[in-house]
């Protein structure tokens, strides 16, 4: 059982639905794994310059269970990262995504691996939803060789080229022009795919965002700008940073949609709608109304600019995992115990991955100089003691 879980989680890349059948051994048959189910989103969509999609989302039990499992995995992963950081195994910056998992899983459910996603530094869960393994995540966080960027990137630089996940960027807002560039390349190659460029409410005030939006609208690029509005730009609340916190309207001539980002099904519906729109009409802005439980990063307690009551209030009323759990239970798709078992398995998976990552070695000293240039041309490079032979020109 345990091995099949590990094997299943190791091959996450192709389909998120795959681990499900081996993960849950349901004794009571689900009434048709793929039998369609229609669920209403928590709140209707608000739109700007476009027709909002319908509130009723098509889904099926398999998908809901997958959502639950994936979000539980992400939640556990982030909490484990928290402990690792406090144990000083993760250093530097660590920005945790717990509370916002619904955006990652909902988006992934609506698109293919050929569509591109690019995000900022709160990228651990997006990386996992794009097919990254837990081992790659923890090894990279701890700076080991088995990490997705060979330990040289760190928390803010997760990338996965084969599933079109473009990272992982530290400078606020700089990823949005990159995302529009990805969309440009998609249009250039006539791929019929789209790019989701994610940014936060803090980045929404960056000039380069509007520059890139202007160019995308001019050139009709299939770019979808997704504002993950967790209402705080580090310590600054959105009403203190933006004159107009209606981020979905800030595109002016670009249509926008406001989505409840704690409802994975609403996110899925919105992303599907956005993809169709972008392929036909050019850029669109999605504002995901979401919330992060942790502070901005591990060095921010998260309680100096907001009350603990607010955090626990959101956790009680809007938690994405609880919403899916209630949905599953109310539709009788699984029992309480089965869901708890899933959570236990997920916890074990995470612990195993951490153990494995701890065993991965640190990068070799020579790795300091690899990948500076492609095909490493003859640069001067000294060893740490400045006596090592330089690379010489051909």
């Amino acid at each position, binding site marked *: 059982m345990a091995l099949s879980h590990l094997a299943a989680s190791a091959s996450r890349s192709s389909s998120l639905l795959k681990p499900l059948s081996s993960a849950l051994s349901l004794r009571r048959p689900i009434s048709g794994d793929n039998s369609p189910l229609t669920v209403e989103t928590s709140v209707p969509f608000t739109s700007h310059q476009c027709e909002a999609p319908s509130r009723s989302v098509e889904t099926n039990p398999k998908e809901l269970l997958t959502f639950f499992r994936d979000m539980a995995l992400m939640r556990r992963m982030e909490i484990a990262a928290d402990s690792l950081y406090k144990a000083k195994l993760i250093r530097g910056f660590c920005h945790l995504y717990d509370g916002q998992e619904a955006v990652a899983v909902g988006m992934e459910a609506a698109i293919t691996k050929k569509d*591109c996603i*690019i995000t900022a530094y709160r990228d651990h869960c997006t990386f996992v939803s794009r097919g990254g393994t837990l081992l790659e995540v923890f090894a990279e966080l701890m700076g080991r060789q088995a*990490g*997705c*960027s*060979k*330990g*040289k*990137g*760190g928390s803010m*630089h997760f*990338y*996965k*080229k084969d599933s079109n996940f*473009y*990272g*992982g*960027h*530290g*400078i606020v807002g*700089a990823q*949005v*022009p*990159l*995302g*529009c*560039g*990805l969309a*440009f*390349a*998609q*249009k*250039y*190659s006539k791929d019929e795919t789209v790019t989701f460029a994610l940014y936060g409410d803090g980045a929404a005030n960056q*000039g*380069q965002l509007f*520059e*890139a939006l*202007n*160019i995308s609208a*001019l*050139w009709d690029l299939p770019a979808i700008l997704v504002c993950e509005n967790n209402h705080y730009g580090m310590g600054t609340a959105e009403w203190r940073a933006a004159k107009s916190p209606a981020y979905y309207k800030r595109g002016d001539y670009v249509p926008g949609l406001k989505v409840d980002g704690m409802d994975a099904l609403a996110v899925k519906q919105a992303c599907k709608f956005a993809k169709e729109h972008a392929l036909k009409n050019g850029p669109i802005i999605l504002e995901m109304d979401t919330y992060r439980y942790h502070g901005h990063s591990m060095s921010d307690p998260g309680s100096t600019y907001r009350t603990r009551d607010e955090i626990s209030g959101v956790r009680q009323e809007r938690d994405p995992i609880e919403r899916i759990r209630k949905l599953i239970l109310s539709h009788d798709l699984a029992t309480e115990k089965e869901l708890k078992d899933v959570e236990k398995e997920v916890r074990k998976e995470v612990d195993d991955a951490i153990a494995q990552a701890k065993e991965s070695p640190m990068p070799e000293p020579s790795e300091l100089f*690899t*990948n*500076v*240039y*492609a*095909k490493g*041309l*003859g*640069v*001067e490079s000294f060893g740490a003691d400045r006596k090592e032979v330089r690379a*010489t*020109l*051909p």
Partner: protein
Amino acid sequence: MAAIFQGVGAAAALSSLPSNSFDSKNILFSPRRSFSVRKAPSFVVVRSDGTMNLDLNPKGRRAQQFIANAVATKEDSSAASSSSKPGHELLLFEALREGLEEEMERDPRVCVMGEDVGHYGGSYKVTKGLATKFGDLRVLDTPIAENSFTGMGIGAAMTGLRPVVEGMNMGFLLLAFNQISNNCGMLHYTSGGQFTIPIVIRGPGGVGRQLGAEHSQRLESYFQSVPGIQMVACSTPYNAKGLMKAALRSENPVILFEHVLLYNLKERIPDEDYICNLEEAEMVRPGEHVTILTYSRMRYHVMQAAKTLVNKGYDPEVIDIRSLKPFDLYTIGNSVKKTHRVLIVEECMRTGGIGASLTAAITENFHDYLDAPIICLSSQDVPTPYAGRLEEWTVVQPAQIVTAVEQLCQ
């Protein structure tokens, strides 16, 4: 391998070029191999498939010495472009355009983005005609938003496209510094090698003709610390086309520095396909007494000073370093080992410029071979003034170069 051939041929010395007027004059090249013997110049054609051969490029008014494997030459007349001469004559900006056009034909992934590059044809006419030939999706007019369109170029490069981002003036790219430094330079490293960024960022920079402080900037000194990028500076139509093509074929991000005053240089370049090695310096004039390292526009000031120096009995070796990052320490080193004296002439400012880094690199590596401290002549650490006379004095003039060589060779 290519470095060995550097010493064999020389591109030639610039004979009668006044320092302040480059407009559409037919540049005369008189052939030189060493001080006393006058031979026809030959240079290495580095072909795209990596093979090399020596080719003759007859230029200049004087009768040429016959060389065994060359096309017979005859006296050049200024208006001529007779079919018996190999190659074709063109101006530097046309050479850049030719290189760009050939690469765009060769590789459909190459595209150009910049302000007014498309319908307008480019503010220095480098991209003229390309939009009509290749269409609006390959030659893109951007709004005035350097930060974002440089970022978009980098994003497109991450997927495999090969964009050329043009800064209308290099100084405008300061607005895109974050994208160039953090994303362009570092993504290959921070992604553990997953992404290459085969982008070319190019544009004219340098002190022009009374353009004012903000339009006379030398960005090579600001970008030289960014890890992961390559920087090259072109100075002749020949190396402009070669470097442009090499930059487009390189998997690394390359910043190609052109100079506003050099766009109208005329030269005869070969007809066949060739590229210049991005990491190599060019031996302009071999010599024995002193090594003069220079690049871009200062090359011409140096060559003018060289005439005076030759008349005074000195034999300077002039090297156009071309590759600003990384330095071609092999060629430079060989030269230092031969002459034991180094003069660096550059247009960057004294503080933190290319010359400063080069001085440090040579001192670190070749200190034992130096007979005298390195002299580095750079522009003054001032914003470039508008007034013509003042502007002249911010950059290095040939007279200063002569004085410096005399001082070095005492």
